[in-house]
């Protein structure tokens, strides 16, 4: 079986949405090795600096090492400049690593953050190392399932609640359909003042078509009324 020895991959669903000058990032929490969920509770939204965060997808090892390098370079840069890093600089440093090592790396990243010059910004850095500044970004294997949904539902000038609801809904849609996405939904909201982390456990997420309600215990099934016997 390919499971135990497969490289850890975060099939994943990741999203970044700016709203009203701030930014919200969202992700699922499944890290899979083949068909086995190696970690059902991962945190795919990693901090680069106080004001810039990164959503990681693809190879877990690759995305972690890239984020570690960039965190290091960004801190050096901040010490030299004497002020917080901008989201654009963070995104560019990631892009330089992704592009120069494109033959070896397999990771799609979404950089999101807030700086005093541009406000809330999202940059997508997919496989290959392009850098794209976007009004919203989606990535990971699960994102394929809501391209159309986002095209329809995303609008400019959303409030914080609207944006967060959209992100959570989209990730839960992906979790429903994508085997490589699952677990909980984590969101990170970044604005000029602070950073807020939110956590949506699986049982708080809406159920979609034909999804079964979660059972806490098999004993619940046994103690409920038995179904009608089939009569031929």
């Amino acid at each position, binding site marked *: 079986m390919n499971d135990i020895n497969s490289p850890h991959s975060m099939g994943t669903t990741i999203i970044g949405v700016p709203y009203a000058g701030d930014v919200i990032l969202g992700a699922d929490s499944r890290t899979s090795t083949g068909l086995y969920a190696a970690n059902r509770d991962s945190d795919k939204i990693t901090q680069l600096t106080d004001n810039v965060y990164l959503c990681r997808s693809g190879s877990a090892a690759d995305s972690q090492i890239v984020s570690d390098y960039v965190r290091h370079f960004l801190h050096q*840069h901040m010490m030299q400049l004497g002020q917080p890093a901008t989201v*654009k*600089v963070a*995104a*560019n*440093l990631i*892009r*330089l690593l992704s592009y120069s090592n494109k033959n070896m790396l397999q990771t799609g990243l979404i950089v999101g953050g807030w700086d005093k010059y541009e406000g809330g910004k999202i940059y997508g850095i997919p496989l290959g190392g392009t850098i794209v500044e976007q009004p919203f970004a989606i990535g990971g294997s699960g994102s394929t399932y809501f391209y159309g949904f986002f095209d329809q539902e995303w609008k400019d000038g959303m409030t914080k609640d609207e944006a967060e609801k959209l992100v959570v809904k989209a990730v839960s849609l992906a979790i429903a359909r994508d085997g490589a996405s699952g677990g909980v939904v984590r969101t990170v909201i970044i604005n000029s003042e602070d950073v807020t982390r939110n956590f949506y456990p699986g049982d708080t997420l809406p159920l979609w078509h034909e999804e079964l309600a979660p059972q806490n215990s098999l004993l619940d099934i046994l103690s409920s009324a038995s179904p009608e016997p089939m009569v031929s």
Partner: protein
Amino acid sequence: MSSIGTGYDLSVTTFSPDGRVFQIEYAAKAVDNSGTVVGIKCKDGIVIVIEKLIASKMMLPGSNRRIHSVHRHSGMGVAGLAADGRQIVARAKSEAHNYENTYGEPIPIKELADRVASYVHLCTLYWWLRPFGSGVILGGYDRDGPQLYMVEPSGVSYRYFGAAIGKGRQAAKTEIEKLKLSEMTCRQGVIEVAKIIYGVHDEAKDKTFELEMSWVCDESNRQHQKVPEALLEEAKEAAKTALEEMDAD
């Protein structure tokens, strides 16, 4: 004049007993003896102006430029040894270029000034290098607004509202202090600094000079460029008139 080094001034790696490095001070003399360079920070940008002393009547006007663009958003006026100045400009251009390639944004002016200052300072640390015999006035416009820096041969760099180096710097500084820079636009600033340069130029001692001016301001779209011909002429005329009025008194 100043005290003679007598033995402590032979190398840039030697301190004198009273804590001075004479070679650096001598390098600064090279700057002090060159044509005046003035830079001012107006409310919407920077103006740099140079009193370019013409060595020979056979030189083409506009040649031997002493103001150089470092990047789209910044420029440098050089005083002192011209060849040394050219090296500093080359280094600044290279730093600006590399920064943008790495970080994806134009180099902040403060960072550029730090890097140029580090480089100039570097050359005062080794006995097998000599200090640069030139100082620069660096002006630029980045996302934090217009900024003006001056880098001396010692490697010291400060941020200024108005700066002057070269022969007429004392007189120029006095004149700059009289200006209300924070209320002035670059368009007005160009006229004022032209008057200053014409005012400090010593007709008796020095040869004729050419006025070289550049700016980076809102009006130039935050790009560093030569002051437009028409405005340059207007400034020269105003400066000559002001001079005549002074002489007439």
